[in-house]
C-alpha cells in the first residue's frame, strides 16, 4: 500500500498525467461532477459521484465506426479508427467499477467488440472508496462493498491522506511509475472502511431484497399486472438509460454528408418508441412494453444468462435523475408486493 498527502493530490495527478491521459471527477460549470481530462487547475470534486458514469470513457455515446465512399456503383470502405490513447480514470466508485464486469460480459464475449476492447486494454481504472454514501445508494444489495472497491488500483481518501493500493498488473505498473507515492501500512485504511460500512448499514436501501427474480419466475414476472401502473407515468425519455453505468444498447446509423457516408454507433434506449422498430412495425408498441423490457432486462434476463448476476450495480443515478422519479427500486419492490 502507498499513500500521499491529500494536499499533494495535484502532484499525483500531474505525475499520472505525464504518462497517460488522466480523467478525474471534477465539478463542471453546472455544478455537477463529471469525468474531466485533468490539467493543472482541475480539482477533485467533493461530490459523491459523477452524473454520467465512467462507462462513457469506454463506450462513448457516439463513435465513428467506419466510413464509406460511394461513387457510381462502386464503394470503398475507409477504416479510420483512432489508435486508442492509454488513459487513467481516477475516482471510479465501487458501483461503477462493478459495471465494467457487466459491460465486459457483453462486449468481450465472442464476437469481441474491438472498439470497447481497445479502450478496456488501454484504460486503467483507479477506484476510490466511498466515505459519504448517499441515501440513494444500494450497491450493498448487489454485494458490492463501497468501502473496498475493485479496479486496477483502489484508493481511499480521508481528511489528510490518499491511500493507494494496486490490484492488477496494470495497476502495479502504474504505481511503479509514480514516485510521488510513499509506502504505508495496509491497516491504514481500516478505520476509513469501518466508518463507511457503518454508514452503509444505515442507508435505507442498503438491504434491498432482490430475491424472487430468478429465471424460473420469468413468465410470472413478465405478466405481472403491476407493469401497467408502474409504467403509466413514464415519459419515455432516455435519462435512466443514459446515466446508467450498465446500459449498453446501441444503434448503428449512417450519416451521408454528400461526399462520404459515415457510420456511427450511438447509444440507444429501450425507452424510445423506435427501439425495436422493424421493417413492418414494432413489437413493443406502448411504453408499458418498453418500460418492462428495461427492468426485466436488468432484473431477470441478464441474471438468467449470467449466473444470477444482476444487470444493476445500485449506483442510484436513476433514482436521482428520473424526471418522474420512477426507478428500479420502486419497480423491484412493487413487483414483489404484487407477486405476493
Amino acid at each position, binding site marked *: 500500500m502507498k499513500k500521499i498527502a491529500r494536499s499533494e493530490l495535484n502532484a499525483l495527478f500531474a505525475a499520472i498525467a505525464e504518462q497517460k491521459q488522466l480523467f478525474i471527477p471534477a465539478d463542471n460549470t453546472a455544478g455537477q461532477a463529471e469525468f474531466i481530462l485533468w490539467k493543472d487547475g482541475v480539482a477533485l470534486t467533493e461530490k459523491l459521484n459523477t452524473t454520467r458514469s465512467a462507462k462513457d470513457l469506454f463506450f462513448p455515446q457516439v463513435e465513428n465506426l467506419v466510413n464509406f465512399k*460511394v*461513387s457510381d456503383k462502386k464503394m470503398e470502405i475507409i477504416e479510420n479508427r483512432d489508435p486508442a490513447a492509454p488513459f487513467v480514470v481516477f475516482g471510479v466508485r465501487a458501483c461503477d467499477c462493478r459495471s465494467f464486469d457487466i459491460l465486459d460480459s457483453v462486449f468481450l464475449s465472442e464476437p469481441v467488440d474491438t472498439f470497447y476492447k481497445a479502450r478496456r486494454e488501454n484504460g486503467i481504472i483507479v477506484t476510490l472508496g466511498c466515505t459519504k454514501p448517499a441515501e440513494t445508494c444500494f450497491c450493498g444489495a448487489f454485494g458490492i462493498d463501497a468501502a473496498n472497491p475493485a479496479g486496477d488500483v483502489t484508493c481511499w481518501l480521508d481528511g489528510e491522506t490518499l491511500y493507494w493500493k494496486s490490484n492488477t498488473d496494470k495497476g502495479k505498473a502504474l504505481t511503479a511509475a509514480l514516485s510521488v507515492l510513499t509506502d504505508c501500512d495496509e491497516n491504514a485504511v481500516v478505520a476509513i472502511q469501518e466508518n463507511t460500512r457503518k454508514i452503509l448499514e444505515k442507508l435505507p436501501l442498503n438491504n434491498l431484497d432482490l430475491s424472487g427474480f430468478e429465471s424460473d419466475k420469468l413468465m410470472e414476472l413478465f405478466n405481472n399486472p403491476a407493469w401497467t401502473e408502474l409504467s403509466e407515468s413514464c415519459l419515455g425519455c432516455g435519462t435512466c438509460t443514459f446515466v446508467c453505468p450498465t446500459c449498453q444498447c446501441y444503434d448503428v446509423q449512417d450519416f451521408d454528408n454528400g461526399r462520404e457516408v459515415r457510420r456511427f454507433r450511438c447509444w440507444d434506449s429501450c425507452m424510445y418508441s423506435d427501439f425495436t422498430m422493424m421493417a413492418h412495425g414494432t413489437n413493443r408498441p406502448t411504453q408499458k412494453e418498453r418500460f418492462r423490457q428495461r427492468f426485466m432486462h436488468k432484473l431477470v434476463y441478464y441474471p438468467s444468462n449470467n449466473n444470477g448476476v444482476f444487470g444493476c450495480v445500485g449506483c442510484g443515478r436513476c433514482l436521482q435523475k428520473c424526471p418522474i422519479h420512477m426507478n428500479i427500486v420502486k419497480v423491484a419492490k412493487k413487483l414483489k408486493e404484487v407477486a405476493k
Partner: protein
Amino acid sequence: MQRIGVFVCWCGSNIAATVDVEKVSQVLAQEPGVVFSTNYQYMCSQAGQEMIQESIHKYNLTGVVICSCSPRMHEATFRKTCEKAGLNGHMVEIANIREQCSWIHKDKDVGTEKAVVLGRAAIAKVHLNAPLTAGQSPVKKRALVIGGGIAGIQTALDIADAGFDVDIVEKQPTIGGKMTQIDKTFPTLDCAACILTPKMVDAAQNEKIHIYSYAEVESVKGFVGNFNVTIKKKARYVDETKCTGCGLCTEKCPQKKVPNAFNLGLDNRRAIYIPFAQAVPKVATIDADYCTMLKSGKCGVCSKVCTAGAIDYKQKDELIEQEYGAIVVATGFNPIKLDKYDEFAYSQSPDVVTSLEFERLMNAAGPTGGTLLRPSDGTHPHTIVFVQCVGSRCDDGRGKSYCSKICCMYTAKHAMLCREKYPDTDVYVFYIDVRTPGKNFDEFYRRAVEEYGVHYVKGMVGKVVPQDGKLKVQASDLLGDRQLHIDADMVVLAAAIEPDETARPLATKLTASMDTNDFFTEAHPKLRPVESPTAGIFLSGACQGPKDIPETVAQASAAAAKVIGLLCKDSLTCNPCTAQPDELMCNGCSSCEKVCPYGAITYADKEFRGPNRTTLIRRMAQVNPAVCQGCGACTVACPSGAMDLKGFSNKQIMAEVDAICR
C-alpha cells in the same frame, strides 16, 4: 431510386458561352441515379423535345432534369413534353443555368462549376419527386352577388346575360344601393335615377336573376365551384308574393314619426314603408322597431287596408340554403360617422349636412322636393361652404388615412349645381388638393371654377360655429395666406367613405382577406384586381376601395367576366402542389388552420388503430386540395412536421440544400 435523364441546353450561345455544357452533362452523368445525360443546342425546340421523349422511352426514365433557362420560362413546356412521353409532368425539374448562372457570370469555369451544382440540386430534388395529378372539382353553375347596389346589379346582369343563374342578396328592402340616393352624376350631370332604375327593373325582370332583398348572408361553407351558402331572409311581415306595391298601407299607417332612412333622417316615414317609388322589389316592409302592432299587438291598420291580404305579422326570418360556384362581394360603402368632427358643428346645427344628405336636399324625390332649403328653417341658403376631406387623408386617427377619391368630383358637382339652379348663392369649397384624374374630370372641375364661379379655397376649415341662425365659418386660405371668416347658411361636409360595416364579418365568413381599413384585398393589386386571393370570391365596386360610378360599373363587369369564365367550366383543375398532412403525425392542434389564408384546412375526428388492438379517436387536419393554393405557411406552423407540401416537400428542399452545400 429514380432513373434520371439529364438534358443540358446550350440555349444557342446564351448558356454555352459561359457554361461548358459538355462538361456539365458529363459531370452530372456521374450523379447517383442518372442513367443518361446529354446536351443540345435548343432543348425547347421541336428536335430537343423529341430527344427528351425518345430518351424517356429508351432509358425508361422516371425523372428528368433539364438544365436550361428559368422554370418560369419553360417549365410548363417541358412538363408537357414529358407527359406526352408518358412521364408525369411533375417528375421534371429545371436547373436554371441561364438567368441564374450563364447570364450573371463571365468566367466560364465559375459558370460551369455553378451549373453543375444547380444541376445536382435539381437531381437531388427529382429523386424525391412523386408523380402529382391535379384533382378536378365540379363547378356549380350559379353565382351569388352579395350587395345589390349598382355594382352588384351590374355584375348580376352581366352574369345573367351569359346564361348563368345569379342571386343577389341585399340587406335593404330594395336593391339600388347608394346610387338611388344620388341626384345627379358627374361629370355628365345626368340623373342618377334615370340611369339606375332601368337597370334595377332589368334585374328584377331577368329570369336568371333572383333577388333576395331584406336578406343577409348567414354562413358560407365550401370552396371555389362548390360554395354552400345560407341566406337569412329577414321577416318583412309582408308577403312579397301578394303585395302589389300599391302603397295604400304606407299612407294609412298611423305611426308617422319614423325617421326616413332613405332620406337620411331628413324627414319621416311610416312604420310600414316602401323606401322610394322605384324600389325593387316594390313591396312594403314593416319596420319592427316602430310598428305598434308588432310591439304591442294593437293596431293592425295596414292589414285592414291591404286588399291583397299581404300583411303577415307572424312572419319569421327564413333561412335559405343555396349552392354557388362563385361569389361576388359588392357590399359597397358608407360615409363615415362624423361624431369625432365636432369642430364642424355637425351635431349642433341641422344646417351642417353631409354631402349625401345634400344630395337628398337637391333631389326632386327628396324631402324638399328638389328645392334646396335649409333643414333648420326651410329657407333658401345664400352662402354655402363645402368642406373637403372630412375624415379623408387624415392621420390624426379620427378618420381615414386614405383618399376617398370621389369627394372632389361630387363636391364640384354640388357646387356647380347650386350655382346653376341658384345663381344668387355664394359657394365656397375648401380643399387640401383637388384631385381630378379621370376622363373629363378636370374639365368638369375647371368649369365649376371658371364658368360657374365657385370659390375654391386651398385650406381647411378650422371651426364652424352656429350663431344667430348663421354658421360662422373660420378657415384659412393657404394661397392667400390669410384667415377667412364666412357667415354661411349651410355647410356641406364631404365625409370620407368607408366599407360597409357588414364587410368585416362577411370577410370572415368568406375567409377572404381584408386590409386594415376593411376593404377587401385583391389577389394582385395590378394583375388580378377583381379577384380575392380566396379562390372563387370576386370583388365588385367600393368594397375593394373607394370608387366612383363608372369605375364601379367597370369593375362590376370585370368581376362578372371572371365569374363567367369560372362558371363556363364544368370542373376546375386544382393546383397539384397542395399541402397534405400525414395523418399519423397530426396532433390536431389547429396551428396550420390559423395561418391558412384560404381556409383550406378543416379538422375531423378520425379513428385510428392504437397499440394492442385499441381504437383511438384523434382530431386531424384535412386539406381541401381544391382550395389550397400551395403557399406552405401551414407546413412551417406545424410542429410535428405532419403537414408537408407536395412538390416542395421538406425532404425535397433539404435535398436541394444538401446538394448545394456539399
